[in-house]
């Protein structure tokens, strides 16, 4: 009976499983189960009258469990609660306008003698990058093994749910017999007001409220922007003139306009599907129906492959340039022995 109380508690508890749950006393768990069942509209009174020490009532508890199982896909809900989020998610960013420029190209001396200390400096940087790469790979190994362990737990849970689904018909046949042995509940149960849980309805009323709040916010932001603009212009007026200043100002204005345009494009709903940005979950779907913000994996793969091809071409070009530069330097310093890296 205790085990059944604990099982019901685990099913009804909104928290994901953790060590904290195990330490809650049986009586507390039982009381929580009773109140949760009551708020969900469980009709049988006999359960509410059960003692909380786990001494009797296993049949009532079994009936409560099967009531819950009949109402909704409990095992699947519990699986979703403890789903491992890694491994089936990827971040997508299609915003080209806001993409950063990447690291600045390394400053290359056009001509002239190269100080060997500068070369030593660059070698040192390369060495550090190499060591960081090794550290990153070690980190990746450690995290992968952690991920593997978590996934193993999850697959065990999935197998358990599958086993349950296979055995389910037997369970319901048995529960019919259990229900049959119960005495029918007194009709006085109907007089007790059942506390149905209040499900907040997201009707139009809510939506209107949200719309109004957003409009007020937009007003406030507009005022704030106006104030800032006035203050900035006052400040900018005092910043002096001169050709460099106006040229700089023009450049600033252009960059800002570009960024603003990109941001507006991101937010505009009617300019077609917004470029995807942020984490997406990988879901296998048979029917091919895609939601609003859903992306086809094949399409994404194609885009990523073409980007990869472009980047590889750029990499090969840069490597070629580096090799040429190294060859030139090797020729320029006859006293030095150069050992180039193994060609690929």
């Amino acid at each position, binding site marked *: 009976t205790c085990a059944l109380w604990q099982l019901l508690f685990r099913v009804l508890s909104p928290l994901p499983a953790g*060590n904290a749950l195990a330490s809650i006393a049986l009586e507390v768990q039982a009381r929580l189960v009773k109140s949760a069942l009551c708020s969900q509209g469980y009709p049988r009174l006999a359960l509410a009258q059960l003692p909380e020490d786990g001494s009797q009532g296993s049949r009532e508890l079994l009936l409560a469990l099967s009531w819950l199982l009949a109402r909704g896909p409990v095992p699947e809900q519990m699986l979703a609660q403890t789903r491992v989020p890694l491994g089936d998610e990827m971040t997508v960013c299609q915003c080209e306008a806001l993409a*950063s420029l*990447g*690291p600045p190209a*390394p*400053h290359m001396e056009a001509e002239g003698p190269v*100080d060997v*200390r*500068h070369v*030593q*400096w*660059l*070698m*040192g*940087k390369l*060495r*550090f*990058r190499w*060591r*960081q790469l*090794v*550290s*990153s790979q*070690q*980190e990746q190994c*450690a*995290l992968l093994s*952690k991920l593997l362990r978590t996934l193993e737990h999850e697959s065990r849970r999935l197998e358990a749910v599958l086993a349950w689904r296979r055995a389910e018909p037997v369970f319901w046949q048995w529960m019919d017999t259990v229900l049959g042995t119960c005495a029918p509940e007194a009709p006085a149960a109907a007089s007790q007001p059942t506390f149905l849980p209040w499900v907040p309805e997201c009707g139009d009323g809510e939506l209107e409220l949200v719309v109004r709040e957003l409009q007020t916010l937009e007003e406030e932001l507009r005022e704030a922007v106006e104030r800032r603009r006035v203050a900035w212009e006052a400040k900018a007026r005092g910043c002096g003139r001169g050709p460099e200043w106006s040229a700089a100002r023009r450049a600033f204005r252009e960059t800002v306009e570009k960024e603003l345009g990109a941001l507006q494009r991101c937010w505009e709903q009617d300019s077609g599907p917004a470029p995807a940005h942020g984490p997406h979950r990988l879901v296998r779907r048979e029917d091919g129906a895609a939601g609003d913000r859903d992306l086809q994996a094949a399409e994404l793969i194609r885009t990523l492959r073409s980007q990869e091809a472009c980047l590889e071409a750029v990499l090969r070009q840069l490597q070629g340039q580096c090799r040429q530069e190294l060859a030139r330097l090797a020729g320029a310093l006859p006293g030095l022995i150069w050992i180039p890296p193994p060609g690929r």
Partner: protein
Amino acid sequence: MSIVTVQLGQCGNQIGFEVFDALLSDSHSSQGLCCKRENEAYQASCKERFFSEEENGVPIARAVLVDMEPKVISQTLSKAAQSGRWKYGQHACFCQKQGSGNNWAYGYSVHGPRHEESIMNLIRKEVEKCDSFSGFFIIMSMAGGTGSGIGAFVTQNLQDQYSNSLKMNQIIWPYGTGEVIVQNYNSILTLSHLYRSSDALLVHENDAVHKICAKLMNIKQISFSDINQVLAHQLGSVFQPTYSAESSFHYRRNPLGDLMEHLVPHPEFKMLSIRNVPHMSENSLAYSTFTWAGLLKHLRQMLISNAKMEEGIDWHVRPSLSGPSSLGKMSLNKDLHFNTSIANLVILRGKDVQSADVEGFKDPALYTSWLEPVNAFNVWKTQRAFSKYEKSAVLVSNSQFLVKPLDMIVGKAWNMFAS
């Protein structure tokens, strides 16, 4: 990525405690001048780097404590536990009962090899706790026997066993009028060994920090704890989370690696200095305001004139105005005691940090002829304020600052040897 700290000797252990304490207090500070989500990201980044988590939630410092005497370690452990906010691992320390008698050779050749296995085991356990490991801090003094001798030995071992991990030694440069007679021998032996096995030597000068306590913080009776707290403040302002250059939405994953790549890739120039503005007692702080222009101007002059703090700066020292001829520049600079830099990293934290103008540090006259300012100078800017200072700036510099002190130590050591 996490950093494991090895605290060696009395100095190393006392300073180590102050560093962890300062880092955690700052990460929990409510005066960060940023939103709650930002603060949480900052806290999480700091915690992951320097602490590991236990079930009941008290962070455990990622540290190994080593000393040849039990007294300082037990004091350090209990001070941490008393704070209630963090602690050291239960089995993270190694001590003996003998001491090293300020004898470098005793630390390096006797204690080191004898206890090598135990010490390296402790370090390995701490490294294994890290999901992603970037490198080591080794905190040690140069003048004593334990910190210096065992420090050199341990660093060498770390080089062998963790060749891909980064190693930064936090070296305490002794007082010029220090009380250990053989401190100059110890210093030279330490530096020469460390130069081969360490990646970066971040030097903290006792004399400089002492002056900061006396002149800027107005502390009357300066204790080691005061000095160590200033030191910890300086380190914290470098290694607390900073934004990465590419995106201002994420804190940098590997500040130690980035710093080393910017400042010490050249194998012959590994020594770094650290200068921090402003420094003020808490009472005065309430009545002071700072501007970035003022702070950066002082910091730049401190760099050029090799001043250690923002008071008593020699404003006569200026970069030479002569042309790019390097020989001409060198002789002129020598006359003016101009401190030429190889590379500099400025880290700015606080209000309106984006408006701070660091152009003064990009002047080619500050740097050597073989490295242009675009490669030699880097700046990291973070909005979140550090440790009660609304604006703070720290400069980590690879420059000529230690030439004179080093000459002095070498000179004194030779004199003692030759006499």
